């Protein structure tokens, strides 16, 4: 049986509704706009928020890149790409600089994003105050009244218990001096890339039915205390075992046979690009 899908899977009405929510999100940086999250051919919590944003935005001329934890070739990334190709027929790429839309799970690529590009991040928990306040009704009030003690309190608790801010990922950030945002579980390493980004950054949470955005050139400040400043992960003098890159986000990999650990670029397309350049030059 052959099913003819509409361009980009959704009917036009659905796309328009998601775009309308996206426009509102761009107009109010960091504010979580509710939207009617659609049923998707993948399960909620597996990137449906990001996928819906991508599908509502994609045009015939777009070039798409999808990454999952820095990898272009993981199952999740490949399946999302397949769905989009099947329903749109657009070109896909691994090269960050070539893409017009980049859908990403939990990383911002190493190569700086440019004006005109759109980064779509998949978000599991869009509410930065959720652990502090379980009720959605209450957190909405807290956002309205710009009452973010809870976000700072959670960091304070970490400092009390562990001596440092222990957010591994999803370190809350203040957007444009107004809304505190959960930047999706990107490592702290990527938080500074949100600040004054040239590209438009959209965040979609399919299960939680929220869309929010960081428009280009918006101030995004990671929360910190006067005596405990925000710090990104440090890899000291470690470098990538394959391409030798330093100052990028590295994965620690254990060799099962020898028991040794070595480091490797988390952003696989960046690593591959460097290797290709080396062998060409």
């Amino acid at each position, binding site marked *: 049986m052959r099913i003819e899908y509409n361009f980009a899977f959704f009917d036009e009405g659905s796309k328009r509704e998601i775009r309308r929510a996206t426009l509102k999100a761009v107009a109010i940086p960091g504010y979580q706009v509710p939207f009617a999250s659609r049923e998707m051919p993948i399960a909620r919590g597996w990137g449906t928020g990001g996928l819906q944003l991508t599908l509502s935005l994609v045009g015939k001329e777009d070039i798409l890149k999808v990454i999952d934890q820095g990898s272009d070739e993981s199952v999740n990334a490949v399946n999302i790409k397949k769905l989009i190709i099947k329903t749109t027929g657009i070109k896909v790429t691994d090269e960050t600089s070539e893409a017009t839309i980049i859908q990403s799970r939990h990383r911002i690529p190493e190569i700086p994003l440019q004006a005109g590009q759109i980064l779509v991040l998949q978000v599991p928990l869009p509410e930065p105050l959720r652990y502090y306040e379980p009720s959605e009704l209450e957190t909405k009030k807290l956002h309205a009244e710009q009452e973010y003690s809870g976000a*700072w*309190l959670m960091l304070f*608790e970490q400092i*009390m218990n562990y001596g440092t801010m222990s957010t591994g990922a999803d370190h809350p950030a203040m957007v444009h001096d107004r809304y505190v945002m959960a930047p999706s579980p990107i490592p702290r390493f990527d938080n500074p890339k949100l600040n004054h980004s040239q590209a438009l950054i959209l965040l979609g949470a399919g299960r939680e039915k929220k869309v929010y955005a960081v428009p280009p050139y918006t101030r995004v400040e990671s929360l910190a*205390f006067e005596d405990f400043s925000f710090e990104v992960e440090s890899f000291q003098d470690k470098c990538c075992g394959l391409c030798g890159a330093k100052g990028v986000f590295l994965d620690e990999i254990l060799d099962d046979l020898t028991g040794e650990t070595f480091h490797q670029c988390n952003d696989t397309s960046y690593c591959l690009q460097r290797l290709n350049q080396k062998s060409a030059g």
Partner: protein
Amino acid sequence: MTEFELPVLSVSNFNKQFGKGCPSCKDSNEDSLKKNYCPVCGTVYACQDITFEVYAGEILGVVGESGSGKSTLMQCLYFDQEVSSGEAYISSYKDGKRDVFAESSQQKRYIRNHMMGKVYQNPLWGLRINFTSIGNIAEKLIAAGNRHVGKMEARGKELLEHVNIPIYRMKEAPKNFSGGMQQRVQIAKALSNNPPLLLLDEVTTGLDLSVQASVLDLIKTIQRELQITVIIVSHDLGVIRMLADRTMVMLDGRIIEQGLTDQILEDPQHDYTQHLVQSLL
């Protein structure tokens, strides 16, 4: 003497009703109500036409039987509930010229965070029992604009010492504490930003006698040292006798008698007050 001393808090013609009211009870003549309840439409007049003032460094006691509107009064003063009508002025807020009941919810939040402290009857209402004790105190400090971990920790330790909670338990959650200890953490939290106005709602109810005595002692000491203004609600005349300089007696949502505490206890005028003093064991 050019001017009289300004009250820290002055409340005038404050009303709080639950329900819309009907023609038979709207003009609020006392005959149509059964206690504070309208038998025709079921509206409860929790607080009716309440006017009082509190001066700096004073302890004002509020007594009355259960359901007389004491706690509703306190909840409205702390903006936990909206008032039905009436005005309130706080001397430290905009020179006491703005009716705080009419301010926006953001401003109310500001007043609450910067100028007030409240201790609830039940520690669960005033504390986050899963966060550390020091974190609970820090929450109030963060809300008041503090962003220095070292200073907040020092202040928290100082307060916990003040309320006789061993410092080595400061990182423990109040859920592990006994009722009396939880109440003392709550007092420390309420005092953390040196509020000019402290609201105490039945703080000793449910505590055993020796703990009651130590909590009362603590309140008295702190009030003397820091010269804060306190409104204390209790149905226990013993507590009022020990702490309050002045006392208001409430019945069915109205103030039926007010004056110096000694005067009220030694020479009660109203039937109900006489009955109340008579029943003092």
